[in-house]
């Protein structure tokens, strides 16, 4: 492990003393950790890229992730694979010129969405970002209609008006993906507020990237949510890049989960590529939220295996880095887990085949969907 990694795990070993898996605000000596960490960072930064230093497997903060039933893992595998195949189909379609604009795929991010979706209940709310295909599918959207939307067809869930950056499905609790970095976080806080005002036990979760951390609105939302103890989960999918810029180049802090602690918020850093770890973390956070203990911040360390958006030439990161990350990507990790449980290769292969077939059908459905009627352009401005 590199020098930087060592620095970080040193800081973490102090942190880990706070059971169970994340620290209660003020319950551990965060400031001590931070000082130590800052001192270390000043010495070493920014010679080494955190993109290659912190591998997901190094990052889980000792969170206890009880093994999930194999049946559920198989369902999670099916879900994650569905996302992966949809994203691959979409990238292929984009290359053929069938998709315009900015399309951000979630290849490599699947476990963050799947683990979280399985940990939450129907009735809970979610908001997310332009990189939101995985959340959409994990929360139950139909891939055919999702692809149709991205292609701008009439059968898209928003009739082709929203597209890739604006996935939405109120019936599944998905209240909207957003094209403006950070904008969706206060929306989730508002959903949590509504739940609290109405005396419901719904929680809201909002997903955002590492880059979003540096938008003022995020910090405004952290403070209010913590102060009002809103039933909210902040989930940061830290893929270590903000568009084409590695996050260490612009962030004052490496371990961003430390930030929310200064707002008095419980926070943890986890392996975002491991569905069981994500599931455990989100379950704990949801339990706290429902118990009226307020928001939790989760930093899921993950990695985006494809470009920032379709057409990205990826000149800003070495191929070797991507190759290395493949050992930790969610599907690989999931397959390893399944094999370790004694699941037969044939069973995995059967799922692969089924998902593959249903994705072919979804793509065919989307491509067969008509263009929207031009009159549609003028509807929905007002209701």
């Amino acid at each position, binding site marked *: 492990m590199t020098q930087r990694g060592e620095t970080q795990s040193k800081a973490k070993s102090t942190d880990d003393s706070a059971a169970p898996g994340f620290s209660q605000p003020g319950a551990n000596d965060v400031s001590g950790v931070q000082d130590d960490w800052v001192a270390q960072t000043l010495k070493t930064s920014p010679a080494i890229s955190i993109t290659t230093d912190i591998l997901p497997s190094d990052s889980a903060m000792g969170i206890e992730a009880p093994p999930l039933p194999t049946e559920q893992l198989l369902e999670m595998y099916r879900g994650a694979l569905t996302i992966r195949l949809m994203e691959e189909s979409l990238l292929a379609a984009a290359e053929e010129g069938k998709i315009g604009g900015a399309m951000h795929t979630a290849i490599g991010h699947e476990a963050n969405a799947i683990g979280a979706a399985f940990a939450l209940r129907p009735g809970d709310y979610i908001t997310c970002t332009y990189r939101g295909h995985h959340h959409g599918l994990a929360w139950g959207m139909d891939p055919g209609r999702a692809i149709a939307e991205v292609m*701008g067809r009439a059968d*898209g869930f928003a009739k082709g*008006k*929203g597209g890739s950056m604006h996935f939405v499905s109120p019936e599944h609790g998905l209240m909207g993906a957003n094209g403006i970095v950070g904008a969706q976080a206060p929306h989730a806080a508002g959903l949590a507020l509504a739940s609290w005002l109405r005396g419901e036990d719904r929680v809201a979760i909002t997903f955002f990237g590492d880059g979003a951390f540096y938008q003022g609105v995020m910090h405004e939302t952290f403070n209010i949510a913590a102060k009002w103890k809103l039933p909210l989960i902040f989930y940061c999918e830290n893929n270590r890049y903000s568009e084409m810029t590695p996050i260490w180049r612009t962030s004052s802090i490496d371990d961003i989960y430390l930030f929310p602690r200064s707002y008095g918020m419980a926070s943890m850093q986890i392996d975002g590529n491991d569905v069981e770890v994500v599931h455990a973390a989100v379950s704990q956070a949801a339990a706290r939220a429902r118990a009226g203990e307020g928001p939790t911040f989760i930093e899921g360390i993950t990695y985006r295996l494809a470009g920032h958006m379709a057409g990205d030439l990826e000149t800003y990161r070495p191929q070797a880095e991507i190759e290395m990350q493949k050992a930790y990507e969610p599907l690989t990790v999931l397959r390893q887990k399944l094999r370790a449980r004694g699941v037969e290769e044939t069973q995995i292969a059967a799922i692969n085949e089924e998902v593959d077939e249903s994705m072919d059908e979804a793509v065919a459905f989307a491509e067969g969907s008509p263009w929207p009627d031009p009159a549609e352009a*003028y509807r929905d401005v007002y209701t």
Partner: protein
Amino acid sequence: MRRTTYIQAINEALREEMRRDENVFLIGEDVGHYGGLFRVTRNLLDEFGEKRVLDTPISEQAFVGMALGAAMVGMRPIVELMYMDFTLVAADQIFNQIAKYAYMTGGLLNIPLVIRGQQGGGKRYGSQHSQSVESLYAHFPGIKVVAPATPYDAKGLLKSVIRDDNPVAFLEHKMLYFTRGDAPPPDEEHLIPIGKAEVKREGSDLTIATFSYCLLQALEGAATLHEKYGIDCEIVDLRTIEPLDTETIWESVAKTGRLLAVHESYAMCGIGAELVARAYEEVPHLLRAPARRVGMAPVSIPVSRALEEEVLPWKEEIIATVLEMERE
């Protein structure tokens, strides 16, 4: 004459002005090491280093406000907004602060900064990445607004804008980035004055006043109108929106007696509304038919190709409106 892309023209203007004046620096997301999402600032970091080309976090309010701070003491920041839609993310700094600073300080301070970036539709980026924001900028006194359509104008205007002692919004268009056109040789003192429109096509029947990507649409439309209907439009490229060069427009209207304002942003409260209003205030006697405007439909910009084409006010809409006006 050499030909360059619009992107290259801007890149050259930045480079030349950064060489000329060490107070000029660039700040924005991805502008440094990557060279900008659209590669407009490509290779500038190599020449000028990290102190002149600054990669920021996604913190528009902060870095736009910082540009204001640096400009107060005579630096000349050029802020790139990755999409001009993000004007709205940094709106307090732009409209409550930058636009008012010189005025509120009674002229004790002046703010020589540039906010630049691409705007506009046509590439299916959807509602939050395709808007045109010129009328927003023009509405608030204190910020000049420039929106060139050709590489030649882009280079000359950007150089002037960087040398201007006021805040200026320099609006590029994503559909213009890869268009090619004449460009003066590098390093020439090629300056196009702010506030000067230019006649881009001569004609005697009707004046189209437009800017940015709509200029190309209007030129195509005018060619069709000439070939098919024998109508000769004169096209005035505003180039600068604030301050508006109405003199050049009225000169043209004096010849044609008809005015059509064309732009991609909404007709409601758009630059066209302003132009038409001013025509009636200032030169009603020149108008032989009602002045009109064309803007995009009053809807958010949809992603679907079919719907985006429907709502953008391009060539077909210009042709149709001109034909209607000719019948009047």
